């Protein structure tokens, strides 16, 4: 309905309805020609205007927007606004023309809606991928933005009868509140109706026994009719809408049998009431509605509870920030106006509003939002800050490096979305089963009625058919898997572990071998130079400068040890990186190599380099030139606190643990011995690592690879499941099935535990859903389930599934209890 009704000739000037009678009723009001739908409107309008109250129409107009107008053109157009899109739409790194958006979908209430939306949206041109989550009431779309504007998508969703708007936590809250209120209202109407009609029904049954006078019986029936009518048309509305939607899309969902049962029982009753004969079923109509709505309401509450953990940046981040302007003064600015390169002032206790690095000042930051790790991280000049984390007690200025959809926390969400966008095989099978299911139930209902009516000649045939329609619950079947997976993903996200691939859940339970990388994985990867042994005629600083210049081309954790060491930045030419060996480059006309002793020694012609004899054991790097060795650096790394607990935990689960590292020094073997790792392979090149994994797999092992996710990409990819230990800054470069952001190795144990639990609960859910339907439907067809029990059974069966799924999310789920583990290995392990 256009907002300006007075200007458009097709709407009645007075009441705003569409004028379908042409120019029949016109009048001149205040010098303007006005159209009316009927003489009455015309008469009223003339009366009002003649009495000098034409201002009434100005007041009137503002209130004339129908609820549909909430979703009118202006709103949809806003979806295409540039600033709006910057906030909500992100572009994938692999193919920049594919845009991704999260939409909040209102009006979804069961797995059939999910199916419907996914299939409908995939039929639209330009849409690449769609995944709809019922628990989060969210749809994630990947599509070609230039071919199809966002407004167009939202409009198509609206024509399906759902509301779509870009996702934000506030809007989700609002939507949930709205749905909650509406559900309670419907439930109230159904409940009161059920009680009233129930009382009349008792009177009617009693009357039937004592041969009640017809006029009293009819009176009772009429009153029941009056009470049941709003229950059917208002309270039971969602079932009818759902059923109609399903028919329209030629994919009948679980609403269809229910709507049929309610509709048929109501019509049969109205007919009996009107004609004064036959049976009335008002009591069952209201009872069905009430019980099914109760089930749905409880299920909705459970879903709302389950979906609350998603991180939503738009509600997390402050709406205004303090920007340091060119004059050095801080001024307040709305967040969406901040752009890359701005300098922001971060006060104590403030949420960091954008990704960037510390420009001035220092503080400690709570990054639990990001990593699940609650201890404060100290930040100094140059350190990375991540939007959404919380500043401690210091004051800092932040140089903005990313805003909007490019934020790191956003890419975490995106990774999680991808994981949830592909359904595991088992869920796809359940979905398929559920869609055949409804048709079978309808056929079965017809068969049941035919049998009881024609062959058994029972007057109960109608009842029995109603039971069959109501008792079946395909919903439990399609909910069984996705509900559990969402809960499990949320649970791990809470612990700082991102699961990015859906097959992780299926494969985790088959793992037999765990292969760990060393540096940055079992150790902290924070290497420091502990000893410098100079072999040539150079100062210590000169050696460090050359090494640092070379290492700035490496992404290996070793490189970090050299950051901050050089006095001057030397230019490097012809840089060459050799995996797990070292680097080579030309500085000031001299060729240098930095890396393992053997690699560096080759430059000056020696096959092997020898350490000075007085040197202690550890991880040594050699810097060499074409003339000979230049300098030895000894690097030291510390073991992660829980590395020992992890290895012990894995072994207690009968898993073979392998240490596979490129480090050729004795440190690897030493570490392996300390941690009593089953197999140790040191000094492996990436090719050898890959071969090692493939060899294991060829022998029938299922391998979980734990690495840093950046240097081990091909190895990680070869493993059945890969877990990367990484921090947020490297997230974009990380390729792994799951990512451990917390830096706590025990997260891997959690992954094993949650995966096992997830699998168990999925099996339980599917078993429950299948056996419920397989048992209940034949029993109902055999007239052994009265309709009220059928309604209770159906409501309970989907409720059981959702509540069971939520068990995964419970905090009580602890990994291995501590007393089964040896005391946590402490102290610095062998070097590296």
């Amino acid at each position: 309905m256009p907002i300006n009704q007075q200007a458009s000739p097709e709407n009645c000037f007075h009441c705003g309805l569409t004028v379908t009678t042409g120019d029949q009723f016109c009048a001149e009001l205040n010098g303007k020609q006005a159209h009316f739908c009927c003489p009455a409107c015309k008469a009223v309008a003339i009366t009002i205007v003649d009495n000098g109250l034409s201002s009434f129409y100005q007041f009137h107009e503002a209130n004339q927007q129908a609820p549909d107008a909430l979703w009118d053109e202006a709103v949809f157009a806003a979806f295409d606004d540039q600033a709006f899109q910057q906030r909500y739409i992100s572009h994938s790194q692999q193919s920049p023309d594919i845009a991704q958006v999260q939409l909040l979908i209102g009006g979804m209430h069961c797995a059939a809606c999910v199916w419907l939306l996914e299939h409908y949206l995939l039929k639209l041109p330009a849409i690449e991928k769609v995944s709809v989550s019922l628990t989060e009431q969210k749809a994630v779309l990947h599509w070609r933005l230039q071919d199809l504007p966002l407004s167009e998508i939202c409009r198509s969703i609206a024509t399906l009868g759902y509301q779509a708007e870009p996702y934000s936590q506030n809007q989700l809250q609002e939507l949930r509140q709205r749905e909650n209120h509406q559900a309670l209202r419907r439930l109230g109407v159904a409940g009161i109706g059920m009680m009233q009609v129930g009382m009349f029904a008792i009177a009617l049954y009693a009357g039937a026994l004592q041969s009640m006078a017809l006029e009293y019986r009819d009176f009772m029936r009429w009153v029941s009719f009056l009470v049941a009518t709003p229950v059917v048309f208002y309270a039971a509305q969602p079932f009818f809408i759902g059923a109609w939607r399903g028919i329209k899309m030629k994919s009948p969902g679980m609403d269809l049998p229910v709507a049929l049962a309610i509709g048929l029982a109501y019509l049969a009753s109205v007919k009996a009431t009107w004609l004064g004969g036959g049976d009335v079923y008002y009591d069952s109509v209201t009872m069905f509605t009430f019980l099914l709505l109760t089930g749905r309401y409880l299920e909705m509450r459970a879903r709302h509870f389950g979906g609350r953990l998603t991180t939503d940046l738009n509600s997390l981040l402050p709406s205004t920030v303090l920007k340091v302007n060119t004059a050095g003064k801080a001024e307040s600015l709305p967040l969406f106006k901040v752009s890359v390169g701005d300098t922001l002032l971060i006060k104590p206790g403030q949420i960091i509003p954008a990704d960037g690095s510390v420009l001035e000042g220092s503080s400690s930051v709570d990054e639990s939002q990001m990593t699940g790790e609650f201890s404060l991280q100290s930040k100094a000049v140059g350190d990375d800050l991540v939007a959404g984390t919380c500043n401690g007690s210091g004051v800092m200025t932040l140089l903005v490096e990313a805003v909007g959809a490019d934020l790191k926390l956003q890419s975490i969400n995106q990774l999680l979305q991808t994981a949830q966008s592909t359904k595991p095989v088992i869920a796809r099978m359940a979905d398929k089963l559920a869609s055949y299911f409804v048709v079978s139930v309808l056929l079965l209902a017809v068969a049941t009625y035919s049998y009881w009516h024609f062959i058994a000649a029972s007057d109960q045939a109608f009842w029995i058919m109603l039971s069959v329609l109501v008792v079946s619950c395909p919903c439990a079947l399609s909910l069984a898997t996705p509900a559990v997976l969402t809960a499990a993903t949320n649970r791990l996200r809470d612990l700082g572990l991102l699961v990015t691939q859906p097959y992780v859940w299926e494969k985790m339970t088959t793992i037999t071998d765990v292969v760990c990388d060393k540096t940055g994985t079992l150790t902290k990867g924070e290497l420091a130079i502990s000893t410098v042994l100079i072999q040539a005629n150079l100062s210590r600083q000169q050696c460090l400068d050359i090494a640092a210049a070379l290492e700035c081309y490496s992404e290996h954790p070793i490189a970090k040890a050299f950051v901050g060491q050089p006095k001057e930045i030397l230019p490097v030419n012809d840089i060459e990186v050799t995996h797990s060996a070292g680097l080579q480059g030309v500085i000031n006309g001299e060729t240098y190599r930095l890396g393992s002793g053997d690699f560096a020694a080759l430059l000056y012609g020696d096959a092997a380099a020898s350490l000075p004899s007085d040197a202690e054991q550890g991880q040594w790097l050699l810097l060499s030139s074409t003339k000979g060795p230049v300098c030895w650096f000894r690097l030291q790394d510390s073991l992660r606190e829980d590395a020992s607990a992890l290895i012990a935990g894995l072994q207690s689960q009968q898993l073979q643990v392998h240490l596979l590292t490129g480090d050729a020094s004795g440190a690897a073997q030493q570490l392996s011995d300390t941690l009593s790792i089953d197999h140790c392979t040191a000094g492996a090149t990436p090719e050898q690592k890959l071969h090692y994994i493939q060899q294991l797999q060829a022998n029938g092992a299922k391998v979980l690879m734990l690495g840093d996710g950046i240097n081990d990409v091909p190895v990680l990819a070869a493993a059945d499941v890969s877990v990367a230990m990484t921090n947020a800054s490297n997230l974009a470069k990380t390729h792994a099935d799951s990512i451990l952001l917390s830096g706590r190795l025990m997260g891997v144990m959690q992954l094993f535990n949650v995966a096992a639990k997830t699998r168990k609960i999925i099996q339980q859910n599917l078993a429950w859903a299948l056996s419920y339907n397989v048992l209940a439907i034949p029993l109902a067809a055999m007239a052994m389930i009265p309709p009220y029990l059928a309604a209770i059974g159906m409501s309970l069966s989907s409720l059981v599934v959702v509540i069971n799924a939520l068990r995964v999310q419970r905090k009580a789920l602890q990994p291995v209890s501590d007393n089964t583990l040896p005391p946590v290995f402490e102290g610095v392990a062998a070097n590296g």
Partner: protein
Amino acid sequence: MIELTLGSAFIIGLLGSSHCLGMCGGLSSVLGAAPKEGANRHRIFSYNAGRLLTYTVIGAVAGLLGEALLAAIPQSAVVLRTVAGLLMIAMGLYVSQWWMGLTRLEQIGAILWRAIQPLTGKLVPVSNHRQAFMLGTLWGLLPCGLVYSTLSWALASAQWQQSALLMLAFGAGTLPAMLSMGYAGEKLLQRLRQPRFRSVAGLLIAVMGVVTLATPFYHSGHIDHSEHTHHQHHDM
């Protein structure tokens, strides 16, 4: 006549009031009783009391006319009933905006309204309950297809008490919507005016019209206990 009961009249009023909402939509502002204006909103009761009084009176008048007609020509009962049924169907189509035939009837009524309209001038803008009540009695005579159709029922039932009550029940059916204007949020009112709702309401009214037409034939072979039901509802 099983279906010409007070209950049905009430339901017709209820279903038809989606139309009334548009008609009398911003009326509360004319009454100075917009929800914001607090105490004045009670004027809506006086206004509706006046309107219902008018309906009751014209119902009684129609009933008397019906009685007189029936006394003179007993066969006219069938004709009156058929007209009532047809008008009811027309009303259904009118409420759902599928066929606006009733507007012809309204045009005839509009002639009458022209005589009444000047009287409203003295009452608007309303400043007290008496004026609101008076405005209600006049506004009840608006050329309204709904009122006319229900009036044809009153005519067909041909008993002045029953006819008056029928019209009162019809008016009472419109009350929930009309009274809510001063109180309920605009949202609810707008929802009632959605095309979908109007279609359903119109359809139901039309079905009642069809039944009105069909019932005499249907019941011809049955024991007619409609009189009992009839009196039953009197007692309500």
